[in-house]
């Protein structure tokens, strides 16, 4: 078996192709931003999650601290049950407030965590009790129009 220039070209081609895949994975995709660190899972119930989706970010003071893993409807409480994985480097008090917020006017929705003052910290499997639902634009517009009409009739 002698080596030929043909082998060299095929080698270059294969290396370039795999290189392009790796570049896509890390530079274009989110593989570089995946947390390989340990996480712990907490849950929260919301009356209305609006447009929140799995894999949405969880932020505290604007810093990414975790991701939403699943969203289901709890058929006993008729509330949305949101499971989230939080980076175990970050600890939050048990009375932390979870809000569904929107990045920009039409941006994607994420969960904002506002820590409370409790001494005890949340552990895996705990439930965040204080939650605030997503602001639904239609409701807000409806409320605004209703208020306006009420003012004018006075």
């Amino acid at each position: 078996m002698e080596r030929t220039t043909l082998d060299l070209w095929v080698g270059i081609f294969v290396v370039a192709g795999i290189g392009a895949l790796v570049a896509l994975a890390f530079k274009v995709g989110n593989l570089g931003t995946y947390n390989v660190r340990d996480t712990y899972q907490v849950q929260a119930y919301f009356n209305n999650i609006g447009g929140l989706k799995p894999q949405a970010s969880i932020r505290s003071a604007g810093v990414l601290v975790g991701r939403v893993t699943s969203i289901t409807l709890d058929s006993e409480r008729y509330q949305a049950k949101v499971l989230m994985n939080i980076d175990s480097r970050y600890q939050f008090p048990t009375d932390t407030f979870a809000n569904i917020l929107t990045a920009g006017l039409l941006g994607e929705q994420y969960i904002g965590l506002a820590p409370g003052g409790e001494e005890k910290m949340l552990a895996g499997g705990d439930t965040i009790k204080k939650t605030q639902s997503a602001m639904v634009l239609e409701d807000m517009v409806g409320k605004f129009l209703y208020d306006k009409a009420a003012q004018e009739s006075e």
Partner: protein
Amino acid sequence: MAIVKALRGIGSRVINAVWRIGYAARFFFKVLFYSGMSFRRFRLTVREIFFSGVMSLIIILVAGTFVGMVLGLQGFETLKRYGSESALGSLVALSLVRELGPVLTAILFASRAGSAMTAEIGLMKTTEQLSAMEMMAVNPVARVVAPRFWAGVVSMPLLAALFSALGVFGGYVVGVIMIGVDSGQFWSQMQSAVDFKGDILNGVLKSFVFGVAVTVVALFEGFDAPPTAEGVSGATTRTVVESSLLILMLDFILTAFMFRGD
């Protein structure tokens, strides 16, 4: 009588088409069955990777860059109306990785490498080289067809990845360097929108499926070509037409499975 004749014509065409599909399926399994030699004598496959993969590099790289540049330009024009130019990165990357990369690569691959495969095997059949091989107890499917099949299957995902990567680069050149979208926003929006498993791996899977489809069509058409000059030219044309249509139809089916609006 004219109606009977017309019906008879349609019927014979349909039966002929079904016959060919069945033959093609049998051919596909035969190729898989006799694939042993393409790995035992890997040199054969490497040679074919050179002819179908490496020789297609130039067209794929140039096409990818320009498609990315056009996406950057058109995407910017549209997104500007909604004041969301920062989403340009995710628009370019998602459309390339999910659809344009695999589909356009496969169509270019069918016209560049698939047609060459058909012509080569058709001519081998016409000049009775395949029969000569059989006479020497060399299985032409194992010796000629299977290495080309595996070369196509290996080359397609790599070419599609290169196409998408160069396309993203083209979009970056137009969007960030020429128009002046913020570079940080361009990449961060892209990274938050493109999921490795959901988008990139599905794109690779698509290009793999297209690679199988294109090479099977090309090899079958060559193998089944009538052994005349006219027959080979007709087979080459059919390869490009059939594999392009097959790619677009398979793309719809795969997309329906992979990206069901979640």
